[in-house]
């Protein structure tokens, strides 16, 4: 199975490279992530995978997310240090500090400002990991109606991010 996944990796490599380039925009980082992905194939899922290429794309996209996330944290941490001369980055509370308080509060406010049902559905989906189908069932609405609520919630949180994005970049 693993050998099969490696063969798929090789045939999909150009497309994986394009995905990672679009996500990371740094050729060195892209090569690192491709290498990391290749190493992970040895310990990847042992059971049969329905669509191995999709599985590889998902892995690559997740790795790109991890890289971007730690990059953002680093720049946020530097920003926090500058403004607060704050706590030791290795303390257990570091994660809290990393997400600038202001932004956390803005996000909380944005979520609280959503219609009650939208906020509830977003929490069930994003925090509690309940599948959309199950949420639809609980709420007595269709899956596409659940998706509409999620879309509205994402619009609200993304607005905050895109507004703040400029600030973070300037730090």
């Amino acid at each position, binding site marked *: 199975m693993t050998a099969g996944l490696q063969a798929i990796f090789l045939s*999909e490599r150009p*497309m994986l490279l*394009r*995905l990672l380039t*679009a*996500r990371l*925009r740094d050729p060195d980082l892209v090569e690192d992530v491709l290498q990391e992905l290749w190493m992970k194939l040895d310990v990847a899922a042992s059971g049969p995978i329905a*669509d191995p*290429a*999709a599985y590889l*794309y*998902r892995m690559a*996209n997740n790795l790109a*997310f991890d890289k*971007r*996330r730690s990059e*953002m944290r680093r720049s946020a941490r530097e920003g926090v240090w500058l403004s607060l001369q704050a706590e030791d980055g290795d303390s257990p509370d570091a*994660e*809290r500090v990393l*997400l600038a308080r202001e*932004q*956390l509060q803005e*996000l*909380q406010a944005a*979520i*609280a400002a959503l219609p*009650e049902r939208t*906020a*509830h559905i*977003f*929490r069930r989906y*994003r*925090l509690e990991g309940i*599948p959309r*189908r*199950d949420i*639809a*069932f*609980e709420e*007595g*609405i*269709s899956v596409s109606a659940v*998706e509409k609520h*999620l*879309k509205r*919630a*994402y*619009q609200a*949180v*993304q*607005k*905050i*991010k*895109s507004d703040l*994005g*400029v600030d973070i*970049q300037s730090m």
Partner: protein
Amino acid sequence: MAYSERIMDEAIAWHLGLGEAGSEEWRTFVAWLEADPAHQDAYDDLVMADADAAEALASVPAPIRRKPNIIQATPRVWIKRSGWGGGMLAAAAAAWLAILPLATPSSELYAVSTQPGMQHLLTLADGTKVRLNGDTQVTLDHKNPRYASVDRGEAMFEVVHHADHPFEVKVNGMTLRDVGTTFNVRRDAGMFVVAVAEGSVLFQPDREAVSLTPGMALAIQDGTGKVELRRIQATAIGSWSQGRLEYRNIPLADVAGDVARSTGAKVRVTDPMAHQPFTGTLRTDRSADEVVRSFAQLVDGQLRRDGPGWVISPKSAGAS
């Protein structure tokens, strides 16, 4: 880093869709990212916002939510007429849940129905839960919360037991009385089947008084009243409410009926194959098309479109 709301919405649609995406969709996603640096910014902002929002959610307790009474909160109330007129039909297609008041002097009956592919959870005044599968209608009574009738489709009952006031379910003029129970009732063309997952149910308590225990299913033919007892796996009962359909030696025609009810996709299995027994599990927590495709694959049948629906036929029939 400015991008339009349209791009933002596209990024959201991709983000919500990628969890289930196949390789072709991933390639389309890559092309979308490459098409415009603004797409890359929007998607990057979104996944970062998504992670931050999860932290924001985790750092505040869930607000207490006043759970509305589903029946009263649902604004779509239809008065039942002799038939569905054209306008009513269009209205019914827009609403997935219809509630029909059927008042009589002694009782205050009302019907709750779902469209194919939908499920609905009702919590009655006594705490009893009734889960409706798709294409299902039950009749309830405002004046008697210990009564339900299954008029069509399939429903799973989780009954709160009261020794001196048993819960009764009517199906096709016959009575099921709970003895503290979770059970599933299915109303198919020409028969109904009751299957007990927990506790026990008395079938026709004032006549035959057959006691059904977990893992037992009773099938009754409509016209002849012929009764058949089956053994089934208790854990598989009502699995449709968890997004699974589980079978052991069930004719493919019946499985296709369940798929239609659970997903809304019309599927037919052609004749020699329709009687073939099926053992296995179908996941239904995904799109109707995907469920139908994996069903066809599992039974090694050939799938083709048939108007708005699907037909599954033996593979050899297609080869010359």
